[in-house]
C-alpha cells in the first residue's frame, strides 16, 4: 500500500453552472507519480473536473487539496498553486504574439525570476525533448497543430510543475499528428510525472494509465486499473460506452 499523502485530493465536489449541475459528488485521489486517465461521453463533466484542479472552474461545495494546499482557502495564493500545476489545452492556446522560445520563457522569467539566459537554456532543452527545437524562433501560426501542442506541453513543463493536466490534448489534431503528441505524453509518463489526462485515446489509457476514471452525467461511475476497466467493466453504462467507442 502506498503510504505517501495524495498529491491531489478531491472530496465530494459539486459544481453548478447556473442551475445546471456539472459535477455531482465527485471524489478522486491522485498519488504522486500516478497517471489518471478520465474518459466519458461529451458533457459528462470530465473537462470540468480537470479544470477544478487548478481552479479555472470554481466548485460550489466539497474540497480540493493540491499538493497540501486547499483551493478554497482564501489565505492560499491560487497563482502560486497554479505554478505547480501545468495545463495543456485542446486548442493549444500558445501566445500568438510571441515566438515559441518566448512562449516558454515568459512565465519562468516573470514569475520565477529566472535569468533570461538560464530560462532560454532550459526552454531549448524542453523544445529538444518534444522535438521542435528547430522552431524556437517561429511564431505559433507557422507551426502545425501537432507541433503547437508539443510546444504547449513544453511551455507547461518550463515551470517545473509537480502535476500536469491534459484537457483532450489530441482532439483538435489531424489524425496523423495525434501520435507525435501522444509519444511526448508517454515519455513524460515514463519519467514519473503525475498526470491527469482527459482523452478519447483508449490506446493511451490502456498503455499509460495507473487508473481509468469513467464519468457520465457529472458523476464518477467507475474507477479501475486499465486491465480491469477495459476487460471487465462493472457498470452497465461503461460497457455501452466502451462498445460504442472501441
Amino acid at each position, binding site marked *: 500500500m502506498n503510504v505517501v499523502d495524495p498529491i491531489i485530493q478531491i472530496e465530494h465536489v459539486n459544481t453548478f453552472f447556473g442551475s445546471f449541475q456539472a459535477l455531482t459528488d465527485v471524489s478522486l485521489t491522485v498519488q504522486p507519480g500516478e497517471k489518471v486517465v478520465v474518459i466519458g461521453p461529451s458533457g459528462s463533466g470530465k473537462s470540468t473536473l480537470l479544470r477544478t484542479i*487548478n481552479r*479555472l472552474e470554481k466548485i460550489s461545495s466539497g474540497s480540493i487539496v493540491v499538493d497540501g494546499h486547499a483551493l478554497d482557502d482564501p489565505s492560499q495564493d491560487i*497563482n*502560486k498553486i*497554479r*505554478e505547480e*500545476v*501545468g*495545463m495543456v*489545452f485542446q*486548442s493549444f*492556446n*500558445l*501566445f*500568438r*504574439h510571441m515566438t515559441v522560445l518566448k512562449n516558454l520563457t*515568459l*512565465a519562468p522569467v*516573470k*514569475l520565477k525570476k529566472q535569468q533570461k539566459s538560464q530560462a532560454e537554456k532550459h526552454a531549448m532543452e524542453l523544445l529538444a525533448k518534444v522535438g521542435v527545437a528547430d522552431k524556437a524562433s517561429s*511564431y505559433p*501560426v*507557422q507551426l502545425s*497543430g501537432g507541433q503547437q501542442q508539443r510546444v*504547449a506541453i513544453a*511551455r*507547461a513543463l518550463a*515551470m517545473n510543475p509537480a502535476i500536469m493536466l491534459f484537457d483532450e490534448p489530441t482532439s*483538435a489534431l489531424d489524425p496523423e499528428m495525434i501520435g507525435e503528441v501522444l509519444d511526448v505524453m508517454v515519455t513524460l509518463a515514463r519519467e514519473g510525472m503525475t498526470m491527469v489526462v482527459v482523452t478519447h485515446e483508449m490506446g493511451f489509457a490502456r498503455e499509460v494509465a495507473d487508473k481509468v476514471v469513467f464519468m457520465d452525467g457529472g458523476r464518477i461511475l467507475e474507477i479501475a486499473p486499465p486491465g480491469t476497466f477495459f476487460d471487465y467493466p462493472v457498470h452497465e453504462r461503461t460497457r455501452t460506452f466502451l462498445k460504442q467507442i472501441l
Partner: protein
Amino acid sequence: MSEKQVIIDVGDGAAIPRPEDKGLLSAWWLSFLGTLAVLAYLLIFHPDPYLRLLKFLPDGIIVTFQVTIASICLALLLGLLAGLGRISRNRIVNLVASTYVEIIRGIPLLVQLFYIYFALGRIVRVPDMVAAIIALGFCYGAYMGEVFRAGIMSIDHGQTEASLSLGFNRSQTMRYVILPQAWRTILPPVGNEFIALLKDTSLVSIIAVSDILRRGREFASESFLYFETYTLIAIIYLLITLVLSKILSNVEQRLSHYERR
C-alpha cells in the same frame, strides 16, 4: 482555429487604405496627387493670395497638431481605463466606467467643449488650449474606451486561461498576453479616432484657440477672401489626413508580422 483578424470599423475618421483594398488604395493616390496638383496650381498661378495665406497659417497648423497629440494621449489613457473598467468584475468600477462612456457619448462634442470651457472657467482659470485638450480628451476617451473593450474582448479566452494556468494573475495576464495582442486589433480604429480627432480640433477655434481654422478666419475677416481662405484650409486638412492615414496603414502592416506565414 480562427486566424481571421477582427476589424473594428468605427468609421468617423478617414478611411485607412490596406494593401488588399485595391479600390481604396487607388482612391488614396488619386486624392493625394489630385490635392497636391490643385495646391501646386494655386500656389504657382495665384500666389496672391494663396502664397500669402500659406505663410499666415503655419502657427495654426502647429497648434492643431499640439491639441491633437495632447488630446489623443489623454484619450488613450482614459480609453484604456474606461475599456478595462467596462470589462472589470468589480461592479463599482464597471458602473463608473460605463456611466462615463454613456454620458460623454450622449453630449455633442461642441457642447462639451463649451461646457468644459465655461464650467471650468467658473472654478479655475485655465488656458484656452488646456480646456480644449481636456474636452477633446474626455470625449474621445469615451469612444476609445469602447475600442479598447472590443479589442480586449476579441482575444480568444483560451489565451487568458493559458496565462492563468501558468500562474499569472489577472493584471499580469492583461499586460503580458492580452493587451499586446489586442493592440493590433485596436490600432486601426485608434488610428481612425486619431484622424477624426484631428478634424474635430477645428471646433476649438470657437473657444479662442488659434488653430488652422481660427488663423484662417482671422485672415479672411481682414482680407474678405473667404472662398480662397477656406479652399486652402480644406486642402491642408485633406493633405494632413491623407498622409496620416497612409502612415497608419504602414504601421498596421508592420504590426501584423506575426500573423503571416
